[in-house]
């Protein structure tokens, strides 16, 4: 790990920022929590933001180890997005109508799992967590068929997500890096869709409905700076699309966030 120089680190940082992803109306992965726990009583909370073009995401996360090798986690995630579209062929509205959309999605989850430290100072941490959460998505589409006339249509649904995530993190001096996979099953339910949002959009939503539960493989990276008791991290969570049909769903492929964490045990020691 000594080879990871700071210029290289900077490069990594900037590439991660530039591949941040676009507004999405169906599903956005939240930042994966990569556990950094070594013994019981340790825990941290963190808050994060993601601002990327038309997306604004925020989240709060907490993790705690009540018993050695066992951890529990909780998180809440919210994202808002908006945009306009002018192109008839990608527009949900059939004519050359300009439309704008705004939407939001939120997800609250809890999880639990085990962790195991290896290395002389247990600086490598392997973990396996599983969890379950529930959320909702609301999309609102606005169009002006004539300048003074405004029409608004909604599509909304709720969803549940169940996940299993193996992860690995490493601490080295002030650096904290981690990576993990998240296998997620996303089930949609309680949809209420005004099909006046257009065929393209409705067809995608139907795909979501018929494809439910969607199985997604997600991959996360995180690079953090430790300024005891804080950890400043840049995180990226990407959906690695498995099935071809998912491509039509226009799922957000990548979510990049900046988080500030507070290690509670480090606070106590001070």
């Amino acid at each position, binding site marked *: 790990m000594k080879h990871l120089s700071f210029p290289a680190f900077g490069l990594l940082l900037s590439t991660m920022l530039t591949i941040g992803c676009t507004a999405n109306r169906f599903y956005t992965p939240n930042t994966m929590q990569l556990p950094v726990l070594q013994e019981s009583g340790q825990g941290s909370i963190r808050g994060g933001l993601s601002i990327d073009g038309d997306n604004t995401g925020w989240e709060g996360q907490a993790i705690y180890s009540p*018993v050695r*090798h*066992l951890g529990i986690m909780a998180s809440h995630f919210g994202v808002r997005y908006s945009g306009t579209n002018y192109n*008839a*062929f990608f527009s949900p509205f*059939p*004519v*050359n*109508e300009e439309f704008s959309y705004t939407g939001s999605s939120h997800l609250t989850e809890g*999880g*639990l*799992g*085990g962790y195991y430290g290896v290395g002389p100072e247990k600086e490598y941490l392997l973990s396996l967590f*599983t*969890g*379950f959460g529930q959320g909702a998505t609301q999309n609102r589409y606005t169009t002006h*068929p*004539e300048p003074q*006339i405004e*029409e608004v249509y909604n599509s909304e*649904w709720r969803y*549940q997500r*169940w996940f299993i995530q193996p992860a690995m993190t490493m601490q080295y001096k002030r650096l904290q890096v981690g990576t993990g996979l998240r296998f997620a099953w996303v*089930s*949609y*339910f*309680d*949809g*209420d*869709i*005004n*099909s*006046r949002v*257009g*065929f393209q959009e*409705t067809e995608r*939503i*139907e795909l*979501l*409905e*018929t494809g*439910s*539960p969607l199985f997604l493989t997600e991959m996360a990276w995180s690079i953090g700076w430790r300024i005891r008791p804080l950890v400043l991290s840049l995180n990226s969570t990407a959906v690695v699309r498995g099935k071809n049909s998912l491509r039509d769903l226009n799922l957000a492929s990548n979510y990049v966030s900046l988080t500030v964490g507070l290690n509670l045990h480090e606070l106590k020691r001070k």
Partner: protein
Amino acid sequence: MKKLRILLPLFGVLLLAAACNRDADFNYYYYEPEDYALISQYLNLPDRPDNYQSELPKHLSAMGLATRPVDQDKAILGRVLFYDKHLSKDGTVSCASCHRQELAFADDKQVSTGVFNRAGDRNSIALGSVLSFSAYYGTDLFGSSGIPFFWDNRANTASDQNISSMTNPKEMDMTHADIVTAVQTQPYYEPLFRMAFGNGQITSERVSEAIAEFVNAIGSFNSKFDHEAEKSLGYNVYSNLEFNSFSGFTDAENRGKLIYLNNCASCHSPTQGRPPKIKANNGLDAATVDVGVGGITNSSYDMAMFKVPLLRNIALTAPYMHDGRFATLEEVVEHYSSGVQAHQNLSPELLVNGTPRNLNLSAQEKSDLIAFLHTLTDEQLKTDQRYSDPFK
């Protein structure tokens, strides 16, 4: 023991998640419930309308043809207006009276009859033949290269066209004010206009715009010919069409296709896409009987020239020609085989050395050509519910 403590709750979450798992069952709606209740008293409109946006098969899109974007709400409103007899002076005629779906939107009369049984001047044009209207009709979208409407090309846009049908004394015989009153008195129009135009205000322009949207949305690309052409040509329309036989065609149909490509396609289009010529004289009469395009342009070169119709669904649209003079395809083929007349404006495709070019087809060739013309029929169009009569 400790491991068990970890595993057990894990297991619990798993079970919980499985138990909570809920089936996706989305509710889709298009109309507001009270609107739908009102509309449904009079009309059979599906709760979730079908898509009116046609997609062209590859052999047409590869030629650069594209359909015009369809406004769903206007097309639905247009469909209702198209079938509504209230839009005629005596309440007996709608657009659909002369443009019947089961006949590819033509009628089976030599000349169409309008209100009070008045006879029209010409044979109804099959809207299911002209189609892909939206791909190349209308000067509003395609400028001077857009194909105008009617046998004599007298209307530039679908909207001009339908206003002229509604106000034509021999068709529906309405004034603009009559149209507005007729529409206003029907309760189902308020929600439909509101959805199409953002408010329920009814004007004759809006009526016309909606009907135009519907007419432009009619698309028929499901003939045997289309399926075979798309399958065997892919994007390579020009290099293969003439020489390749279609694997799904019978021998007679393939032979007929060659006769067609060699003798008819230069006017009527090899792909049943945009006709290469907008107007022509095909030698029906030696002297001018109906001036046709000449009546609009006043040019002596346009006398007795008529729109070159597309031959899609041609087997459904008898009788044939602008005056419906031929009752069957056999008569049409006989015309091109032996009856081409030396009109002064006879188009060059039908001339050899200044005299009419009769094809002199054998009996076998005639029946092959007719077999080919039958492959142009789109059976789905006859019952496609997007275009069907919505009235209860």
